[in-house]
């Protein structure tokens, strides 16, 4: 799997330029209109402004300023740190967008005046192309826009999009007919029908996505924001009512202190990091070379219950391979292998080469082309379904079982030796899910070659992982049910669809969804498009057709179907990070109460000093320390928000227990330690 990315930076966190830019952006983001998108931080900004007004009043009337001034400064820092977190996350995307934008330079297009006449072209700017225009792209040209090849074949360098510099073949018809604007034709020529208007091309969308310009709150993010607003309101009520309750108890609390209490209690930690977590989640996908068309799709990936995986390329290697040679009685294994090698010498297919490899490894036969001097090779055709070699008076053939039998009978109408054993071997191979390949010389059946789908070595463990996470895997294959069942059991999938047609896939997805399950699949062909559109997470291959890419809600630039498993992991990690930081943020409040409440009332009710379990230096240093901790924790957690919490494929119960211990338990304990340490520093520096 290629994970090379165009804008992959060395440092996981940020470079100095990025930090500098983010620091500037943090100031710009103080604009209250834009900050309203983030209610918790908006409230923090409003009360920071309030404290600033009080500070100025104190300044004008000559009251002591040190304490209010420090509270004010840290409140503003809280807002700035939250803005900074978002800016850092956005900055990393922007770096990628810049490198993408280089590919979108103003290219010149050769537009055909008449689609069927390749000789009459006019030069226009790529920006003036309209839907349905036909353009000619020749070697060395940049493809001016997204489109479908209607004529020709070419090798194309798609490094601008995928970061992979090895050229790929694109041709008209079939599943590899889509081209992307901004990529370069290396050889030959193609005629492309433009399918995306300028400004809405794949590259444009990609830039918008990585820049976060199109970012909208995802469903879970929205729900979480509502929860945070609710928590903010609850604490607003608790703090405002304290004005009255405090007065009753002769413990009038100054406004800056009430504000300090409010800001430490409202969930500023998760509020400040929420959008950074979302942006970083998208960014993680992009680093895996997957483009999600919406954040909603990323979240849905975390919720997936059923994965539809194509057998070929995902579960098995693309090609069948020879695994054994079963000779008929009277023929030694070695002899059969030798003849199989001779039949395959000119066979350039993967099956043919796997026979040579098997013979070399198992029987020590090295192919000796010299011995075959004067041979004439018989290529495979769909009509004969046989291939082989004629040398001297020997006619060696291998191929489909019935075709091989027919060949033998055509040479010797009465041939019957070994037929029973031959049929038995064929039967055995078919039952085990393999493909039998007959082998014969002249009128004599020699044996059967067992071609086998080879399941990728570590795929079974990955499916077991998925099962532990509660995700069912379903193998989709065109094989017959017997073959499919054998491979399914070897690979350890939960279910399979044999002899699958596109309609079968669609029907299966609909059934799953009716049972309330979310389905993810990947596909590349035009006939996959309906299923891709129906699936909750449809990952289209970059190498696929335009229709497939339009239908899916993600595109994998590496065209690697296995990546579906990673995508699910990224979706889950995104949700986990939000949940973990929310839990952490709320759990923090316990310690903050023990810091601030005794400090608020100790003057009026000295006995409440009993609640000062941390033994903080003075009421003022306690309040200040809680506010400082509250601000610094945002900065401290930015790397975690960007990286995501540790993710392992485990059952929900196990994941919950661990995360609860770390972020819930840790969230209760850590601030006790942190606030105490800050208090020691504040006292040592004489700040309060």
């Amino acid at each position: 799997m290629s994970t090379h990315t165009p804008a992959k930076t060395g440092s996981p966190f940020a470079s100095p330029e990025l930090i500098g830019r983010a620091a500037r952006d943090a100031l710009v983001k103080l604009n209250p209109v834009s900050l309203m998108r983030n209610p918790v931080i908006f409230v923090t900004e409003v009360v920071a402004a309030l404290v600033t007004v009080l500070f100025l009043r104190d300044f004008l009337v000559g009251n002591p300023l040190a304490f209010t001034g420090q509270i004010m400064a840290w409140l503003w820092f809280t807002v700035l740190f939250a803005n900074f977190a978002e800016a850092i996350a956005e900055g990393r995307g922007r770096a990628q967008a810049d490198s993408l934008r280089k590919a979108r330079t103003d290219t010149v297009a050769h537009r055909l005046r008449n689609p069927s006449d390749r000789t009459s072209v006019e030069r226009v700017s790529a920006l003036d192309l309209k839907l349905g225009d036909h353009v000619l792209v020749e070697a060395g040209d940049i493809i001016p826009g997204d489109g479908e090849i209607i004529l020709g074949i070419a090798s194309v360098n798609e490094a601008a999009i995928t970061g992979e510099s090895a050229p790929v073949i694109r041709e008209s018809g079939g599943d590899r007919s889509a081209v992307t604007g901004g990529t370069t034709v290396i050889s030959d020529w193609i005629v492309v029908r433009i399918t995306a208007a300028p400004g809405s091309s794949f590259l444009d969308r990609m830039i918008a996505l990585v820049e976060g310009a199109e970012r909208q709150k995802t469903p879970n993010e929205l729900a979480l924001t509502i929860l945070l607003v609710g928590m903010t309101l609850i604490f607003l009520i608790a703090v405002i009512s304290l004005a009255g309750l405090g007065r009753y108890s002769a413990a009038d609390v100054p406004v800056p202190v009430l504000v300090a209490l409010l800001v430490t209690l409202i969930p500023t930690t998760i509020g400040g990091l929420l959008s950074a977590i979302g942006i970083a989640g998208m960014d993680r996908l992009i680093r895996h070379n997957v483009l999600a068309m919406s954040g909603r799709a990323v979240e849905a990936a975390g919720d997936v219950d059923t994965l539809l995986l194509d057998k070929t390329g995902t579960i098995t290697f693309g090609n069948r391979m020879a695994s054994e040679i079963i000779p008929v009685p009277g023929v030694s294994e070695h002899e059969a292998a030798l003849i199989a090698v001779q039949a395959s010498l000119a066979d350039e297919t993967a099956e043919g080469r796997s026979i040579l490899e098997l013979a070399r490894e198992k029987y020590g036969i090295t192919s000796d082309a010299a011995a075959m001097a004067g041979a004439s090779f018989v290529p495979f055709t769909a009509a004969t379904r046989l291939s082989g070699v004629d040398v001297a008076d020997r006619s060696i053939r291998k191929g489909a079982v019935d075709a091989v039998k027919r060949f033998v009978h055509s040479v010797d109408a009465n041939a019957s030796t070994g037929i029973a054993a031959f049929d038995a071997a064929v039967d055995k191979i078919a039952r085990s899910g393999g493909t039998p390949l007959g082998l014969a010389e002249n009128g004599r059946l020699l044996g059967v070659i067992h071609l086998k789908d080879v399941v990728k070595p570590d795929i079974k463990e990955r499916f077991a992982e998925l099962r532990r996470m509660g995700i069912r895997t379903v193998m989709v294959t065109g094989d017959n049910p017997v073959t499919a069942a054998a491979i399914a059991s070897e690979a350890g999938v939960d279910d399979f669809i044999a002899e699958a047609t596109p309609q079968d896939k669609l029907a299966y997805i609909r059934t799953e969804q009716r049972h309330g399950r979310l389905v993810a699949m990947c596909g590349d062909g035009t006939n996959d498009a309906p299923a891709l559109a129906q699936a909750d997470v449809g990952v289209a291959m970059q190498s696929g057709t335009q229709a497939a890419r339009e239908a899916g809600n993600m595109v994998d630039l590496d065209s690697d179907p296995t990546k579906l498993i990673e995508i699910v992991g990224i979706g889950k990690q995104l949700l986990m990070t939000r949940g973990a930081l929310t839990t952490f943020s709320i759990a923090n409040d316990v310690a903050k109460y023990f810091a601030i409440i005794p400090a608020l009332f100790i003057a009026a009710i000295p006995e409440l000093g009993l609640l000062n379990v941390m033994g903080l230096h003075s009421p003022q240093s306690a309040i200040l320390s809680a506010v400082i901790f509250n601000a610094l924790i945002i900065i401290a957690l930015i790397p975690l928000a960007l990286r995501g919490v540790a993710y392992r494929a485990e059952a929900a119960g196990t994941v919950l227990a661990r995360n609860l211990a770390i972020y819930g338990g840790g969230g209760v304990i850590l601030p006790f330690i942190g606030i105490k340490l800050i208090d020691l520093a504040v006292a040592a520096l004489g700040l309060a």
Partner: protein
Amino acid sequence: MTVLGWLQIAIILALVVAAAVPLGGYMARLYAGERTLLSSVLGPVERGLYRLAGTDPKVEQSALGYTLAMLAFNAAGVALLYGLLRLQGLLPFNPLGFGSLSPDLAFNTAVSFVTNTNWQSYGGETTMSLFSQMAGLTVQNFLSAATGLALAVALVRAFARSNASGVGNFFVDMTRSVLYVLLPLAIITGLAQVAMGVPQTLNASVTATTLEGAQQTIAMGPVASQMAIKQLGTNGGGFFNVNAAHPFENPTPFSNALEIWQMLVISMALVFAFGRLIGDRRQARALVGVIALILVAGIAIAYWAEAAGTPSLLAAGLDPTGGNMEGKEVRFGLAASAMFAAVTTGLSDGAVNAMHGSFTPLGGMVPMFLIQLGEILPGGVGSGLYGLLVMAVITVFVAGLMVGRTPEYLGKKIEAKEVKMAILAVLILPTAILGFSGVAAVLPDALAGLGNAGPHGLSEILYAYSSAAGNNGSAFGGLSANSPWWNTTLGLAMLLGRFAYIVPMMAIAGSLAAKPRLAASSGTFPTHGLLFVGLLTGVILILGGLQFFPALALGPLAEQVQMLAGKTF
């Protein structure tokens, strides 16, 4: 604390569970519309009532329709009871000739009984005619409890169903709740109370000659009939001013045990019924675990605090084994008083057999905090279960994301709509309690009603609004609440606490009912194990603690630390 005290507590709890399990099964069948034990007897009555009212029991309502029916029904209840109390002087069965109630007291009382709060700004035996007690208050005792049951069942149906538009028929659920659950239990346990010495008579008083030869008039009336439903329906409004501390309401330790059992049994049974109705009894067991954990902890703290007594009195030579007996009945003692206090507030009953204001500050904070947690442990009849389910929704959302999936509870996805409504519901309690308390704490009109100065006075304010907004109805003692300010604001707090909570809760029901019920997999957040019990307990305590800790620090906590330091007011 004594072994005997704990034994008493354990036996009562065991008896509650022993009865709640079969009763839960019975209620599950009842609300699922299946045949029950009493169907052959009550079926004709039920069908007759539907014919009389022109209700088709098969027609279901949407969550909105159900809520509107409930609101209309309860508005009519308030209007009727208000009218009745205002006209009390003209109505029959008024042997002592009590006059009509003032507008603010009538409003407060009508709201109080319709919202299942049963806050009493008046003394029953000196204010209410027998007619008001029987036709007004006792009727609402049944109806408010039935309303709670109906709403909880509607929410449970929303969880149990898949892609459904209806959540049941409000009038059918009301009829069944009264007819099959509340009436039979009230009749049986009411007779048991009569056997234990609770009077049931239309005579308003009896005249006795005391040992000194003086004549004494002792108030009586149809006490048992009101006592039974007041406890079973977690209403709590006493016939007499001192409620279940009165010998006619609660004559013996056995009647006391029966009353605690009565308070708990239906709310607990409903949790078990919930497990059966959603087809997963493990879910119910998890909720029972949460309830047991917090309730027993509450009982233990109150019992411990009361048994520890007050240092100043101990220093003055009081027998340390006696603990703090101020405001408690000798026939109940410390354990049964502490248990009654925790149960009556963990529920939304509000009956008292001791004066909570006379508890030690820490012991008195337990009932106050249990109310502030939302009275969900196990809470009022019906209202406890739906409150607990709303908390479960929030818990699942906060922590559920940590398993890497959109949170689900009982197979229903918890999304923006549910979170929004759950948060709106949860906001009601702090808004009503802290909002009103914050104002009352500085308002001379309000402060005039206080019975004590210092932190204890603040506790009186906090407790009154907690009790009203939580629809509990118990009083801390000390506060004279029969004034326009208190009657009006407490009435508003009761309305908010009941209906402003129900409306968003029913919006959740409507949204959930329409969603498909997803099958659980190993990737689903497990909500039936010990982990969830701990998590839900933690969220309830932390969320409640965070909201009320500053206020409690100035009230009972301040008083406790000052008491320990020997300071008095």
